[in-house]
C-alpha cells in the first residue's frame, strides 16, 4: 500500500506539489469514494473513526461536520485554520509544504459533505512562500476538476481562496479568525451562537485545523475501523508532534496518538543535547502547563492528564528545556508572548497578562519581592475562567504551571535578588 494512503506526511524529504504525483500515489481516492457513497457515509465514517480536532481543543470532528451539514441555512462555508502561530508549533507548515493536496482533498470532502460552496484557507501571514504554493495547488486542483463547479461530478461546487493573516495570534481562535476574514478587527466573538450555525457572514461554517482536514482522506482510505485502531481508543489516529528545544533531533514527527512523552523525546528525538539532563517539557504548546522530568511517562492524547495539570497534548508542540535553562526566564518569555498577543477585548486578559509579564520580568531581574508569588497566583486566578476566550486562560495556566512545578527557582530569584542562571534579561 502506498504511504500516501495512510500517512499525513508520507515522505519527510519529498514535497508533493504536482498534482500528477499526488494522483499517481493514490491521491483523491478518498474523494472519489465519497462522491460515490454520499455525504452521510463520510460523516458516519468520521464519527466511527473517532477523529478529534487537531487544533488543540480535541472536539469530535464528526459532530462538527454533522452540525454544519444539518443546518438548513445557505450559503455555507468551510474554513481551514492555517494560522499556526503558537511558539513551538510548526506541524501545519509541514503538511502544507510536503503534502498540500491532502489538505485540499480534505476540504473538498468537507465541502461535499456539508454542502459548502466556498472555502477559505486562513494562512499565517508569516508563511508567504506557502501562500504562493497553495495558490498554485488550488489552481491545479481546479484545472483537474477536483474543486470548482460540479467538482468530480458530485453536483457540489467549491471555490477555494487563500487569505493571509496579518500577524495576530488571536486570529487562530476560531471566531476571531472569522471576524478577521470578514474584514473586521481580529477579536473573538461571544458564543453561543456557535460557528457551525453562525460563522462566516453569519452563515453555517465548518472551521477546522489543517491537520484535521488532512486526517479525513486517511480515514476514508483505510476505513474507520482500521483508523480507530491507531493510537489511543478515545482519541485515535496519527498525530504530528513538532518538537523543539534542547533535543538532539528537533522536528516534526508523525506518531500514533497516545505515544508516551518520554518515547518522543528519547527514542525519536535522540534525547537531550550535549548529554545534559532534562529539566522541563512544555508538552502541547505554550498554552499547556509545563512538566518536569518525572512526568514524562504520560501519554500524549486528548484524555491523558498529568498530575496537577489540565490537558497536555494541545497542538502537539513539545518544547524541551535542559538543566541549564532558567524557568523564571522561560515563564517570562511565554508571559510576554501572551501579553503581546492579547487582543485587548476583555479586561482580565488585556490588563492581567501585562501584569503577569511585568511581575515575572522584575523577578527575573532580581527585583522581585516576597509577596510577588502570591500576587502572581492571585492575578492568574482572576484571569483564569473570567476572561473572554482561552487566551487569557492559557496565560494563567502557563504561569501557574511554572509556579507549581518550579516554585523553588522563583523563590531563589527573590531571595538571591538575581537570576542564578546568569540572567537578568
Amino acid at each position, binding site marked *: 500500500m502506498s504511504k500516501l494512503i495512510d500517512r499525513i506526511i508520507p515522505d519527510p524529504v519529498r514535497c508533493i506539489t504536482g498534482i500528477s504525483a499526488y494522483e499517481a500515489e493514490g491521491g483523491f481516492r478518498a474523494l472519489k469514494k465519497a462522491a460515490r457513497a454520499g455525504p452521510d457515509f463520510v460523516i458516519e465514517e468520521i464519527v466511527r473513526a473517532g477523529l478529534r480536532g487537531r487544533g488543540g481543543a480535541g472536539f469530535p470532528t464528526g459532530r462538527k461536520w454533522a452540525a454544519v451539514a444539518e443546518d438548513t441555512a445557505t450559503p455555507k462555508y468551510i474554513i481551514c485554520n492555517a494560522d499556526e502561530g503558537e511558539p513551538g508549533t510548526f506541524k501545519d507548515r509541514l503538511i502544507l509544504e510536503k503534502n498540500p493536496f491532502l489538505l485540499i482533498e480534505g476540504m473538498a470532502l468537507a465541502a461535499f459533505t456539508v454542502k459548502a460552496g466556498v472555502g477559505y484557507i486562513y494562512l499565517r501571514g508569516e508563511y508567504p512562500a506557502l501562500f504562493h504554493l497553495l495558490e498554485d495547488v488550488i489552481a491545479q486542483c481546479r484545472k483537474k476538476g477536483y474543486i470548482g463547479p460540479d467538482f468530480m461530478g458530485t453536483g457540489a461546487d467549491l471555490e477555494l481562496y487563500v487569505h493571509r493573516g496579518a500577524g495576530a495570534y488571536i486570529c487562530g481562535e476560531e471566531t476571531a479568525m472569522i471576524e478577521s476574514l470578514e474584514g473586521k478587527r481580529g477579536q473573538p466573538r461571544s458564543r*453561543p451562537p456557535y460557528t457551525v450555525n453562525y460563522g462566516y457572514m453569519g452563515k453555517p461554517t465548518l472551521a477546522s485545523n489543517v491537520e484535521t482536514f488532512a486526517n479525513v482522506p486517511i480515514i476514508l482510505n483505510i476505513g474507520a475501523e482500521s483508523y480507530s485502531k491507531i493510537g489511543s481508543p478515545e482519541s485515535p489516529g496519527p498525530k504530528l508532534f513538532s518538537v523543539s528545544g534542547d533535543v538532539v533531533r528537533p522536528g516534526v514527527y508523525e506518531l500514533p496518538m497516545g505515544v508516551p512523552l518520554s518515547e518522543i523525546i528519547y527514542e525519536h528525538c535522540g534525547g537531550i543535547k550535549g548529554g545534559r539532563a532534562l529539566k522541563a517539557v512544555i508538552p502541547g504548546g505554550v498554552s499547556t502547563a509545563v512538566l518536569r522530568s518525572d512526568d514524562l511517562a504520560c501519554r500524549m492524547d486528548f484524555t491523558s492528564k498529568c498530575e496537577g495539570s489540565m490537558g497536555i497534548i494541545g497542538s502537539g508542540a513539545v518544547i524541551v528545556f535542559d538543566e541549564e535553562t532558567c524557568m523564571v526566564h522561560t515563564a517570562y518569555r511565554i508571559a510576554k508572548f501572551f501579553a*503581546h498577543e492579547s487582543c*485587548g*477585548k476583555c*479586561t*482580565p486578559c*488585556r490588563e*492581567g497578562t*501585562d501584569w503577569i509579564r511585568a511581575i515575572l520580568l522584575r523577578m527575573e531581574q532580581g527585583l522581585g519581592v516576597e509577596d510577588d508569588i502570591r500576587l502572581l497566583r492571585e492575578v492568574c486566578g482572576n484571569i483564569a*475562567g473570567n476572561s473572554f476566550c482561552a487566551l487569557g486562560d492559557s496565560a494563567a495556566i502557563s504561569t501557574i504551571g511554572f509556579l507549581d512545578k518550579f516554585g523553588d527557582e522563583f523563590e531563589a530569584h527573590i531571595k538571591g535578588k538575581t537570576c542564578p542562571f546568569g540572567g537578568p534579561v
Partner: protein
Amino acid sequence: MDQVELTINGKKVKAPRTSSILKAALDNGIYIPKLCWDRRLTPYGGCRLCLVEMEGQRKLFASCSTPVKDGMEINTESDRIARARKSVLELLLVNHPLDCPICDKAGECELQDLAFKYGPSASRFKGERKQAPEVTTAPLLERNPNRCILCGKCVRICGEHQGVGAIDLIGRGYDTEVSPAFEESLDCEFCGQCVDVCPVGALGSKPFRFRSRAWYMEEKNTVCPYCGCGCTVTLGISEGKIIRSVGTDGVGLSKGDLCGRGRFGVDYVHSDKRLTKPLIRKDGKLQEATWEEATAYISENLKAVIDSSGPEAVGAIGSQRCTVEDNYMLQKFMREAVGTNNIDSLAALGYSKAQKGIKQAFGLDTLPIDYNSPLTSDSILVVESDITSTHPVWGLKLYAALRDFGATLTVIDPKLTKLSRHASEWLRNTPGTAVAVLNGMMRTILDEGIHDKDAESHPGFAELKSKLEEYTPEKVEGLTGIHPDRLKDAARKFAAAERPLACMTLGANENNKSTDTVLATANLLMLVGAGADALEIPAELTNTIGMFEAGIRPDAGPSHTPLEKPGLGLVEMFYGENSPVKAMFIMGENPVVSFPQAEVVEGTLKGLDLLVVQDLMLSDTAKLAHVVLPAASWGEKEGTVVGASGQPQKVIKCIEQTGESVPDWQIFRNLARFMQKDTGLGTLESLQQEIEGKVSFEFDSSKATPQFNPVDLTMAEETDKEYPLKMVTGNLMQHSGSLTTLSKGLESVVSDAIVQMNKADAKVLEIGDEGYIKVASRRGEITLKAKVTDEVPEGMLYVPSHFPHARVHLLTYPSANGAVSIVAVKVEKA
C-alpha cells in the same frame, strides 16, 4: 413572544427567549454592574464585570452575552463574584490616571461608582500612570486615552448603531486605543453619541469641558427644538445657563438617542446675538424702545393699514419652531382681532405639499409617522430623501430595520447618503425624477400582474393604468438613468413585500420633491396593497404638525376647520403680483434667508407699510422691519409641541428669559389688549384650555379613503445649454436652519454653504477641491466654496440653503404646486 422562566437571586422571572441574563435581570429590577453593555448594542462581553454564577456550573458567566434558558438558576451577588469584580476594577485602575478632580465625568462616572461599590481602595500593582496626550484636534469632541477603559461602546455605537464607523480600536492588548483610521483627526457626523455612552471621562464634549461639576448641575428633560423627531433632551443647567444636552437611556420617543443638533446645537439660546429689547425704526434706523412704545407703534400703524385697506391687507407668518400656544395665539389675533385669514408659514413650501398629497391620496388632513414602523417592515423604500440628515434619530430606525430586522432597504436617490450607502438596493436616479422611477415601478407591477387586486376598486385605477402606459422601462431609463432590469427588480421585490413602507421627507428647503412625488409614492403603496399607514413622511420641524393643528394655514382654522373665505397663502403674499398685503407679522421666521427667490422676498418686505418681526436675534428679515420684538426662546418658555409622530409633548421653562424677551403668544395677547380687543386668554392655562377644546391631536389613519392620483414627472424649470447643471438644495446633518447657525458648537463643525459637485463636472470647469465658484441661475449669482466629490452624480450640485451669508436663495424660486423646483444653474471658477 416566546418566553422562558428562570430564577435570579431566588426570584422567578420571565424573559424573552432571545434575552441575555443581564437584560432579564435589568428588566426585573435586578442590578448587575457592567461597563461595556448598552441596550442598543450587540453584547460585547469585554469588561467582565457582569459575571454571575450559574447553578450547576463551575465557572462564572458574563451575563451580558449569555442567553437565558428555561429553569436557569442565576446568582448575581456572592463573595466569589464580588472578588472577581473587585479584581477587574483593580486591573482597570492600575494605569488609570485617577485624575477625577479635573475630570468632567467625576460624579457621574461609572468606574468611579463601581470602584466605590466593590472596592478596591488602592491597587496592589504599582503601575505607571498612562500619560498619552489628549486628542483635541477635532471640533466638539475630545479624547483622553489615559482614562479609557477600552469598553468599546463608542466604537460600537458609532459603527453598529449610527452606521458611521468613524472610530475603531487600534493596536492590541494593553496598547489598544480608540482612534479614527490611521490616527487621523476625527471626521464624522459629530452626533456625540460616543460621549453619551462613554462610561468614564475618556470621551468628552468640548463645549462642556470644565463648565461644571456634575453634582452642581440641575438636570431637566424637555423636547429638542430642532427637527420633527421630537427627541427628549436632558439639559444640564448651571447658574441659569444650559451648559449641556444629553440623551437619557429609555426616556422619551428617542429612548436616549440624540443627534449633533440636539446635543451640541442648543447653545443658540445663549447666543450673544440675542435681542434683549424691542426695536423701532426711527429716522430709518432700528432703535431700542420700551414694550409700551413698541406695542403702541404697532397698534397705531396696524389700525392705519386696516382703516385704509381693510383687514385683508394684513398678513402673518407662523412658525414650525414656536409652540402650539404661540401659533394658536397668532392665528387667533389675526382672525379675531384683525379679521384676516392671510396666515401661512414656510411649511407652505415644505410639509404642506406633503399634506396636500396625503389629503388627495387618502383624504386625511394629517398623517403622523408611526415611529417604530420601520422595525416591523420587511421592505422599505426611501424616496429621494436624506432622512438621516433631516431626521437623524428617526433615520436610525431605518438603519436598524436593515441591520437587525432583515428588512430590504431600497433607496432612490442621486446623492450618496448614509442610507444609500447602506441600502440593499441603491437606485441612483437623475435628481428630482423620483416620480418617473415610481411610475416605472408601478408599470412593471401592473404589467406583471403582481399588484394587489383589491386596489383595482380604488377610484382612479383606470386613469392610473392609462397614465402609466407611457412609462415604459426604456422611457424611465431615459428620464432617470436607471437601467430597466434594476427598475423591474426593485418593483418586483417591493410588490412581494408583506409589510412595505415608503419613507420620504418634504422640508421647505428640499427642492427635489413635491406634492406629485407624494402622490406617486402613495399610488405605488396602494398598488401593492398598502395603505396610509405605510407612508411615512416625517414632518419637518419640532412643531410642524402642532402648528398646522393650531390653524396656521390660509384656508383652514384650528384642527383644519374649513373657512368660508380663505385668505392668501405665502406664495400669494410674497410672490403674487399686486399682493394687497401692506402689513405683515413674522413670527420666528427669516424669509430673506429661508424663502426662495430672495430678491423678490426682499422687495415684498421693503414695500410693506408695517413689518413686525418677532425673533431671537436681529435676522436679515428683522433688519428690514419697522418693529422688532424680542421673543423668548425654547427653554425660556413653557408650551406644547407636536412633531412628526403626532404626539403632543410639553416643553418646559428651564432658564430665565433673555433680557426683556417674552413668549410669542404673550406678544399677541398684549397687542390685542392694547388694541382693546382682548382675547380673554390671559394665562397660559386659559390658552391651553381653549386649545384643548378646539384641537384634538388625535389622528386616525384608519379613516383613510384611498384614491389613485396619476401624476407625470414635471420640472418647474429645465436645464439648457446655458444653465446645464441641476442645483438641489437641502440641509446638512449639522445644520437645519437659522437656529443652528447661531450655535457656536455646530458652527465649529460646518459654518459655510459648501457646494458639492461631481469630479467630472469640476474637471471640465477646472475647479479644484475647496476652490471658489460662481453659481448663477436665471435669477441671480452667488459665490460659494466647492467640494469636489463623487457623492453627487455628474450634472448635479448640492448645496445647503440656510447659511445667511451664502444667500443661496438668490438663485431659487418658489413652487407650491406639484412640480419639482430644482434650479438650473451654470458654474464657473470664481
